[in-house]
């Protein structure tokens, strides 16, 4: 589903990713843990083409985003990005749009769906996320957990094959982490692959099929957490 090989990325002369290798199967929930500044966010952003890497390969569902340091064409990039959903740490919801408008924006503008069709699907997503009564609310009226679910819903509307989460528990009440874990698990049951980065070891154990650890720009150990040094 996702294959990363020898991925390198520098900011100026600081090398943040020093040859990352990673594989993710269809329907798998992979959690990447690691200390702050270890390069977790940079890796996730690279997969979403929000950062440009210097070397290496990223393949998503058999299509190369970057192959041995060479990026795909503009058109291919667009196609590939459609297959990935991203839930940002700060959510990046559109504050001037209601919850439902946040969700239907991309289906209408990107997939060319008509409004009615998009609305039906968006309401389905809201029901799944338990947000039916928030359809017409604006982001500023929502709690952190609700905002996160809208962000998940917005990404889901594009029916991605891979969903990425940056620190999904950072804005949440500890009591709410179980709920996110539940949502993430139910999505993977549907065959969606999940890539989650966090420094919250408890949450990682709760949600993951597999945990790897990243530090100083390389994946260091596949079972780091079992020896208790993951956090």
């Amino acid at each position, binding site marked *: 589903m996702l294959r990363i090989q020898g991925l390198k990325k520098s900011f100026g002369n600081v090398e943040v990713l020093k040859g990352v290798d990673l594989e993710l199967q269809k329907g798998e929930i992979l959690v990447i843990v690691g200390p702050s500044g270890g390069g977790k966010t940079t890796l996730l952003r690279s997969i*979403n*083409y*929000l950062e440009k890497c210097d070397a290496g390969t990223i393949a998503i569902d058999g299509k190369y985003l970057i192959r041995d340091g060479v990026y795909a064409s503009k058109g291919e990039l*667009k196609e590939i*990005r*459609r297959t*990935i*959903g*991203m839930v*940002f740490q*700060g959510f*990046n*919801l*559109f*504050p*001037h749009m209601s919850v439902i408008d946040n969700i239907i*924006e*991309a289906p209408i*503008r*990107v997939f060319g769906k008509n409004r009615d069709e998009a609305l039906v699907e968006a309401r389905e997503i809201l029901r799944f996320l338990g947000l039916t009564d928030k359809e017409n609310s*604006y*982001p*500023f009226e929502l709690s952190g957990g609700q905002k996160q679910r809208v962000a998940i819903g*917005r*990404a889901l509307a*594009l029916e991605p094959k891979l969903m990425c989460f940056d620190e999904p528990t950072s804005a949440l009440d500890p009591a709410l982490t179980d709920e996110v874990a539940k949502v993430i698990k139910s999505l993977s049951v549907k065959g969606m692959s999940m890539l989650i980065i966090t420094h919250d070891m408890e949450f990682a154990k709760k949600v993951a099929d597999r945990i790897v650890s990243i530090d100083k720009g390389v994946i260091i150990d596949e079972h780091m957490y079992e020896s208790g040094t993951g956090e």
Partner: protein
Amino acid sequence: MNGIIGFLEYFKMLMPQVMDGLLVTLQIFGLTLILSIPLGVIIALGRLSKLKVLNVITGAYILIMRGTPLLLQIVFIFFGLPLIGVTLDRLPAALFAFTLNYGAYFAEIFRAGIRSIDIGQYEGAGVLGLSPRDTFFRIIFPQALKRVLPPVGNEVVTLIKDTALVYILGLDELLKIGKIATNRDATLLPLVIIAIVYLALTYVLSEIMTRFEKKYDYYK
């Protein structure tokens, strides 16, 4: 008592002329707004563009327009352009000068407004696959619009007062009507009357701008 009645009588007598002047003033005001706001958006995009050429050109434009008096610009366009073979009537010349000048001020306001939108909004739109065009017009610009409303409101109120500058071209707007009546009737009352008209105009415009701002209060 007599004074007030006399004032009211005089006011009534002068009314038709004041109305004519008001019409010209509003015409310059309205047309300038309609033309200079889109111009301001375009210049702002030039300022924000990655293309160095566009940056330099729009930067120089803004520097000149904001760095010299509007009155001087009006005089230049009406009296100066004929020297290089471009002759404009008084009203088009006034509109041209006002649009160029206000376009520069609006450009700076819009530039700051667009720049103030968080990069996360671009990235959120990017991962959803929105085109750069949709990202700008659907996500960035509407949010920038809310933020620029207060400074745009200031400019709008300033513009209605600045229209008095076209007096230099002899257009029959409010100020000229007042000045003529003052000379003709040997009284300062006409100037008091047009001052009241300006005051009423700026009050109404401020109220309208406040309404606009309230309309955007639906989100934070």
